[in-house]
């Protein structure tokens, strides 16, 4: 009997070891092959640039032989990459650099299923959030928020109805009590900026601390408000929405995430890897050089930020849908 008990115990121990050894080895070995970072936008843009800079730094923190590959999965204003990632294998080898606030807005605003649920992604790290500012042309008729509030017809420049900038513009117009008519169809910052200077529209929502506008501040562009609690570094004289008495924060939330269901241990390893890479000297030097002002954070910070946007969008959803239909 004693022999039997000893045998069972030994067998259980052996089985336990057999089961736990590969698991602990798997934990120790992850990642043992290449990690792919999906970028939902075209090569050369802001999202692509950051992903490549992070990938370059990350290479120092992964085992030898593991490469970090950046791949652009473009289309449908980022929706294609979101759907692709939602269906990807949750093994930690495929992650993405998402425009998280835009994804959530797209999902909530759409009246048909979009093929993903933003909250279900495995959020790994926050790259940063660029709070939007409101800009007018220095040569235009409006000089301040008050001027815009008094104007009978105010036009806002956006890429399209329902996209991230449209949502920020709509919410700012509503909060400040400014008229809201859009001029849509500009392809990104590159086309929108000269369009504002040309006088195609009156207001443009764009982060003030963003490399695309820094050199125009004070000459061609006049920022009139910062949609944040803190003033912008590059326009310290411009008041925030909170200072003006309007409780609105709106930013471009950039985050790394993976498909739903990445095992916790792997998610933790990835989070550490990403944070180390974003605190690496190489990445910090690149940020300084490129004029990018972003503050990284853990995956939990993304989930927390998304909760804010969820309540903000939910509170304005019906009006936003109505405005989108009214054009």
């Amino acid at each position, binding site marked *: 009997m004693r022999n039997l008990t000893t045998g069972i115990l030994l067998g259980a121990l052996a089985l336990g070891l057999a089961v736990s050894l590969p698991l602990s080895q798997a934990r120790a070995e992850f990642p043992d092959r290449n990690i792919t970072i999906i970028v939902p936008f075209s090569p050369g843009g802001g999202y692509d640039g950051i992903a490549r800079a992070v990938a370059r730094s990350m290479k120092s923190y992964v085992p030898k032989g593991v490469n970090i590959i950046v791949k652009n999965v473009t289309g449908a204003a980022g929706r294609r990459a979101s759907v692709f990632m939602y269906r990807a294998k949750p093994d930690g080898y495929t992650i993405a650099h998402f425009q998280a606030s835009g994804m959530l807005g797209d999902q909530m605003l759409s009246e048909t299923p979009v093929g993903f649920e933003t909250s279900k992604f495995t959020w790994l790290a926050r790259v940063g959030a660029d709070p939007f500012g409101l800009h007018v042309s220095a040569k235009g008729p409006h000089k301040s928020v008050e001027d815009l509030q008094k104007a009978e017809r105010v036009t806002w420049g956006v890429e399209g109805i329902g996209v991230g900038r449209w949502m920020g513009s709509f919410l700012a117009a509503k909060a400040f009590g400014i008229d809201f008519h859009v001029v849509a169809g500009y392809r990104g910052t590159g086309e929108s*900026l000269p369009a504002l200077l040309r006088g195609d529209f009156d207001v443009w929502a764009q982060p003030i601390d963003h490399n695309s506008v820094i050199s125009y501040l004070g000459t061609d562009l006049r920022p009139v408000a910062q949609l944040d609690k803190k003033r912008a570094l590059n326009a310290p004289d411009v008041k925030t929405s909170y200072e003006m008495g309007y409780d609105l924060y709106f930013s471009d939330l950039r985050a790394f995430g993976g498909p739903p269901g990445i095992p916790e241990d792997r998610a933790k390893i990835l989070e550490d890897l990403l944070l180390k890479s974003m605190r690496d000297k190489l990445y910090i030097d690149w940020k300084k050089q490129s004029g990018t002002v972003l503050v990284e954070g853990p995956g939990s910070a993304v989930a927390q930020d998304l909760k804010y946007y969820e309540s903000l969008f939910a509170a304005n959803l019906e009006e936003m849908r109505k405005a989108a239909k009214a054009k």
Partner: protein
Amino acid sequence: MWEPLLQAMGMLGEPMNLLVLAVGAVSGLILGALPGLFLAGLTIGMTFTFGWDAETAMFLMAGMMGAATEGGSVPAILLNIPGEAPNAATCFDGHPMARRGEAGRAVGLAAASSFLGAVVGMCFLMILIPFVKIIVLSFGPPEFFMLVVFGLLTVAYAARGNMLKGLVSAGIGVLLSLIGFSPVHGVLRFNFGSDNYLWDGIPLVPFFIGLFAIAELVNHVLRGETIAEGGERIKVGLFGAFRGFLEVFHYKATLVRSAAIGILAGIIPGIGGVLANFLSYSMTVQFSKNREQFGTGNPEGIIASEASNDAKDGGALLPTIIFGIPGSAGMAVLLGAFILHGLQPGFFFVREHMEIVFVLIFGFVISNFLASLMAAFGADILARVTTLRVGYVVPAAFLLSVGGAYAARENVWDIGIAIAAGILGFAFNRFGFSLVTLVIGFLLGVRAELSFVQSLQISAGSYAIFVTRPVTIVLMILSILMLCLPWLSSRRGKASS
């Protein structure tokens, strides 16, 4: 001005930079010739430059970008497969010339046009730098709409022979262009139930590959034998392609006009090299005395296409540098390389980094020269493809086409688009409908709608916006003159007879 010029010349003199430029030119030429692969290759090239000097990195980028369109002309001529989308119009006369057995001449013509187009483009870049702000700020949606109307009117000339069929083709092109998400209306149109595949409309690369390459491959299978009719190739010898190279100088007006269209298309955001390519081709048809020869291997058709698509780089560099507006997908990657190396585009770029502007100019011109030289020397060898039996050529070309359609976005549905476009292209050829007008309609239709609606959004619905701005008035007069041109020339013909 002189100091940055000398600085850039000094950098060019460094063996490492010259080597990087040559490597860029060779890889650009090869990647340009393989449909759908150039952008991926350019992005990988950009990634390689991490840690390099900004100037050396720019030599690599300029080397790759300068050579790509030259590379893209080779399969367009030999196989009717545009290596890059802006080479599509080269198919119209380049491939018929190859089928006549004069592939070497066609490659030589394309090589010279590319090089000279790039030189003219870069010269204009230098001249226009002080005026770019004025030009970009003068072209808003109403001006753009009038420019598109002007472009659509060229359809009447590009139709060649059968105006009605030409207009029907253009109309189908316009309808196809409306597929996808309309940013101004916020709705998805004609998406066949897919919420994201057709969001951005019909993808350009697989559409062109199907329309030109797959349709022509079907024709080759039906005709049999070889691509060159009767299996006969006019031997051009090692230096024979230089005949084509020198022949360009007989068509100076076409060269300059096409380069000018390319530059303008590059400067104005939203036009792009593909549209420049087709506008230049259709304008050349319009100005030519031998309109009926287009589509049969007319050298002017090749010059119009290749000079414009290389000249547009000079124009497109301007908004990329001054505004950070990439005029093409390639320029977007260049913009990424700027940011990667801490170079901030903007009005101050020219003041602070003029040496980089010169590095890019030298890089583009030398890369074009190297690529043209390589293509011209290789023309005779490459032309042998046209004498191989179609049984060997067609399967390889089909794989290249399908691979190219897939590679651009790595989406398997793009292969379906290429095959559907191939059937459409074959039917159009079979029943005498014009592919030129189909493509012009496709490229301009959605732009016409967008700029029209944007104009009305700006003016709160008033149509007066189209007739109260100086540039729109000039464009409107030009459009009316274009409409009257055939009538005026027929009157002049009658009067002289």
